[in-house]
């Protein structure tokens, strides 16, 4: 191994790949070999260096010649870089001693002229050799990952994620703010099934999963618990939780005696605010854990009055008024956020009368009313009639205490009417560009409306149902379900209603323009159901801010890439699924939760994690602790207790912004230090060349893609890969001009990912500043943002800049 002080290239070797003619047909490999050999450098070539024989050749030569530095001339390092890295490391060579010159995508394939291509190949190899003259070994950075995961939110997405993690052997904490898991799905009576064209019992699917969560040896369930804070970084998060007191011990058998004797009726948030719950209750009868919970706001005993009836009634002595709030601290390797949605506040559309007229409700409330464990025990009633009934003093039974009372129909003989005409209004708060609305489609509401229409038609065939829609979006197999519902005689009116009016008898009229025949219609209704948009739940908003995750403009947690990384949040080690990420239905939420679990498991089990070592490195001898570098946009740099600047290797993306900020040169990106880049510049440049500094991400892929697209550009275009163009300071540009560059082009990634969104504006302002600083020479530097398909445009820029250079020459 080298100690970094070795001078000269006596222990260096160059390996050139023919790539079965891909390289050798355009580059005169023999000429290259001859030239380099004349300079005293060992050169080897092979048909396919990436083959196992090719790799053996490299390994053997390294061991035979006791080589400490290797240059491989082959295809782009993004293709076989990892393979070659592994290959040389197997011989004990530090990976800092390996350089790969791209002789295919950026040479052979883009320069049809054999002489030009050969000259360029030589310069590329020389540049890499030059870079190795002062070899700087890269340190392995490894971190241990905490071997447990945290899932936030106990809805269907969180439950699925937790079960998947646990089934794959990961110890998982599932945290839920309510007293039971189940989330929104527990509120929905039925879920639709596109293949069977039928509605299935939601609880029958959900309940077994909830019980599995409670019974799973690898899952620790923490209900009635909220996240206070999260610190640390990927792989080692410290999470602080606040577990609220239930005032009921785990010895509760859920017999329900306490609730029957409790004298305080309270609003039931689970049942859309109906007063059918007591101050001690289960959230719903199938709650998990099945332990009662006291509402401290309403309990008489907890508010200083002598009551204690529940404690007297309890046979197991489970009531404990002395319980206190608990703070729990966890160390987890990965976090899955599944904090869900809430319904859009439809009272923001007063024209629809929600909160003003009793018989206007939302789809979720309709689901509750039709739910067998809902306020009417599944019977569809006019709300105005029902609320009259529920105001009457009720017997001491509650939803949770009367699981067996399914023979309920006789209760409501006192004048409560089943609505005969129901109008549903779609897209309330969705597809709405007005202030207070949401532009997006909420995805679930067309199907929810169809499902409810179908259920009502089955149970009450005489009911007249009209759905006012903008478009019915029954995607995929749901179209079959839509057809089936149409056949049941549900009416569809294409138009967004203007207003809902209440008549003195509490019936309603919906004013709408049928846009298919341009007629204004007044639809009479006994019940109006609003399909409210899905918006991020307060929990989702809170967690996004506690965890500092990127959100979209509506507040949903933003995934890193909508196609390729749909469950990765903007922070490493934190994943997102379900409706916390975007509006979706149960089916999609479950599918996404499974992926989130797989991603989180992969993250955790890759321990100790080797980190990308091309990140910032601080030279403490040069550092003056001025604090400039703490402006790091990712907060990767901080001051430790002794005032030293330290780097969090898990957060640093290696963008190099700090290298620009540091006036003392104390921060450099490993693998892209000033001396390495200077050496490469010296090696690669000839008089009149155009030099491009290329971001190693999308920009670099685009450059390779020019070669794949059989496009060409002149061979005096030389490209140097950099983590981002932020590492290219004034001195490097001047160095390039000094060594013959006619012009310098910065090729940058577009602001298309959360990381690039942060970096891109920095690169443009960095470029602008540089241009000003350079004075006259500033006119010779250029900037280009590039997208992968934009090969023609980029090749065109290369060509025109190179031609200008030739003219100067």
């Amino acid at each position, binding site marked *: 191994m080298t100690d970094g002080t070795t001078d000269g290239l006596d222990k260096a070797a160059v390996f050139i790949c023919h790539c079965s003619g891909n390289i050798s047909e355009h580059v005169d490999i023999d000429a290259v070999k001859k030239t380099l050999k004349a300079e005293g450098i060992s050169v080897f070539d092979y048909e396919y260096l990436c083959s196992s024989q090719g790799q053996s050749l490299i390994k053997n030569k390294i061991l035979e010649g006791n080589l400490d530095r290797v240059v491989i001339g082959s295809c782009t390092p993004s293709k076989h870089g990892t393979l070659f890295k592994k290959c040389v490391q197997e011989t004990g060579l530090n990976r800092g001693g390996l350089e790969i010159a791209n002789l295919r995508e950026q040479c052979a394939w883009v320069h049809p002229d054999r002489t030009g291509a050969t000259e360029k190949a030589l310069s590329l190899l020389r540049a890499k050799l030059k870079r190795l003259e002062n070899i700087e070994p890269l340190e392995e950075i490894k971190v241990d990952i905490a071997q447990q995961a945290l899932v936030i939110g106990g809805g269907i997405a969180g439950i699925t994620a937790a079960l998947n993690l646990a089934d794959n052997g990961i110890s998982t904490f599932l945290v839920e703010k309510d007293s039971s898991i189940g989330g929104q799905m527990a509120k929905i009576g039925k879920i639709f099934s596109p293949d069977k064209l039928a509605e299935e019992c939601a609880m029958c699917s959900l309940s077994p999963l909830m019980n599995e969560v409670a019974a799973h040896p690898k899952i620790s369930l923490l209900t009635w618990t909220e996240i206070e804070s999260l610190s640390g970084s990927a792989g080692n998060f410290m999470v602080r939780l606040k577990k609220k007191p239930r005032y009921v011990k785990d010895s509760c058998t859920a017999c329900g005696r306490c609730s029957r004797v409790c004298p305080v009726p309270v609003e039931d948030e689970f049942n859309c605010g109906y007063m059918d719950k007591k101050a001690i209750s289960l959230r719903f009868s199938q709650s998990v854990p099945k332990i009662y919970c006291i509402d401290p706001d309403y309990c008489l005993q907890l508010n200083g009055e002598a009551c204690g009836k529940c404690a007297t009634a309890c046979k197991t002595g489970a009531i404990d008024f002395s319980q206190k709030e608990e703070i729990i601290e966890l160390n987890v390797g990965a976090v899955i956020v599944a904090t869900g949605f809430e319904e859009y506040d439809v009272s923001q559309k007063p024209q629809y009368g929600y909160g003003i007229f009793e018989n206007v409700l939302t789809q979720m409330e309709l689901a509750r009313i039709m739910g067998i464990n809902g306020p009417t025990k599944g019977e569809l009633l006019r709300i105005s009639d029902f609320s009259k009934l529920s105001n009457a003093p009720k017997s001491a039974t509650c939803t949770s205490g009367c699981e067996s009372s399914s023979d309920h129909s006789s209760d409501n003989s006192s004048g409560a009417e089943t609505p005969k005409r129901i109008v549903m209004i779609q897209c309330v708060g969705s597809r709405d560009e*007005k202030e207070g609305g949401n532009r997006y489609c909420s995805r679930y509401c067309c199907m929810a409306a169809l499902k409810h229409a179908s259920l009502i038609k089955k149970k009450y065939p005489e009911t007249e149902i009209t759905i006012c829609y903008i478009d019915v979006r029954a995607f995929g197999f749901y179209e079959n379900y839509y057809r089936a519902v149409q056949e049941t005689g549900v009416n569809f009116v294409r138009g967004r209603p203007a207003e809902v009016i209440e008549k003195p008898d509490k019936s309603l009229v919906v004013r709408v323009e049928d846009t298919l025949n341009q007629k204004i219609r007044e639809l009479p209704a006994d019940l109006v159901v609003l399909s409210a948009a899905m918006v991020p739940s307060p929990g989702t908003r809170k967690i996004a801010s506690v965890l500092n995750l990127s959100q979209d403009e509506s507040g949903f947690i933003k995934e890193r890439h909508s196609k390729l990384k749909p469950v990765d949040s903007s922070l490493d080690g934190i994943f997102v699924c379900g409706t916390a990420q975007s509006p979706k239905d149960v089916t999609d939420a479950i599918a996404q939760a499974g992926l989130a679990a797989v991603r989180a498991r992969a993250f955790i089990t890759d321990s100790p994690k080797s980190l990308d070592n091309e990140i910032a490195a601080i030279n403490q001898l040069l550092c003056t602790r001025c604090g400039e570098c703490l402006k790091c946009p990712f907060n990767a740099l901080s001051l430790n207790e002794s005032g030293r600047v330290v780097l969090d290797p898990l957060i640093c993306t290696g963008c190099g912004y700090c290298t620009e900020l540091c006036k003392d040169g104390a921060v450099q990106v490993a693998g892209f230090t000033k001396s390495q880049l200077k050496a490469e510049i010296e090696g690669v440049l000839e008089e009149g060349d155009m030099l491009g500094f290329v971001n190693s991400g999308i920009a670099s892929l685009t450059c390779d893609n020019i070669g794949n697209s059989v496009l060409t550009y002149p061979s005096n275009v030389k490209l140097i890969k950099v983590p981002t163009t932020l590492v290219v300071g004034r001195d490097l540009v001047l160095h390039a001009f000094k060594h013959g560059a006619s012009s310098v082009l910065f090729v940058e990634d577009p602001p298309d990912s959360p990381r690039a969104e942060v970096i891109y504006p920095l690169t443009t302002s960095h470029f602008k500043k540089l241009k000003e600083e350079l004075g006259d020479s500033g006119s010779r530097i250029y900037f280009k943002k590039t997208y992968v398909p934009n090969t023609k445009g980029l090749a065109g820029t290369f060509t025109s800049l190179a031609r200008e250079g030739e003219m100067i020459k």
Partner: protein
Amino acid sequence: MKAIESIPDRKLLLFKSCMVGQEYPGVETATRYVFDRLGVDYCINDEQSCCTGIGHYTDVFEGLTTTAIAARNFAVARKCGYPNITCLCSTCYAINKEACELLNTNTEVRDKVNSIFIEKGFDDLVYEKGDMNPRTNFYHAVEILLSKVGKIQEEKKFDFSGIRAAAHHACHYYKVKYLDVVGNPENPQLIDTIAEACGASPVRWYEDRTLTCGMGFSQLHLNKSTSLQVTKTKLDSLQRAGVELMIHMCPNCHIQYDRYQPVIEKEFGVEYDMVHMNIAQFVALSLGADPYKVCGFQTHSVPLEGFLEKTGII
């Protein structure tokens, strides 16, 4: 959305309205009274002309003339150092705002308008792109009142507790420029909020709340029965909602309801219990202004005496 914090109280040109001046001069005097009491810095400039809105919407003035006149009025505002044009009439507000957008974005129109000015030797009227900002130089007087709602509440001498009032926001304020409304354009609450500060109990939502007054400029004259039918529909809804006071922000609506309520009562054989006034008149009353000398109620068609007596003002 317009942020309430961004509404200025300095350098306001109180833009005179021909409908206000002709029909309800008390709206202007009441606004001035309230502005003075609230310490708003404004001026009235006699060089300002009509916005042409009435003429424009009855097809008398075409767009270019309207824009040229707007450009002239903008120059008046800038020259006197009061560039924040604050309108008493929602039509003036929409016309000026629209003209400003047009002058800023349509080079052809701007050049034509300027060439007319130059040809006639009015070089000082020439409008350069960006001279005015359509979002930050144009306000309706009701927005200024809303921004001072706390002060109104503090200064009020007379409390209208228990008055069942209904707001009628003007289409040309919240429908024409709906992206630039303070609050939710589907449910504007400017008048309601101010009226509440004066102690009234606004009916926050009533049937047909967003229905137009029915005036429709030329429609009132060309399709009178339709026009009055629309007005009647809304009056019926308000009657059902038990409203006793309808509060306006636009002289056009004000005319339609106040002048035509007696006509509708006669033609349709109905009776209504409500009276009408502008929000500035209501605030002025609340601050202790004289109902006749300041608010000019003697020019109203639906007599306010009953209302004023009931509330104990006279």
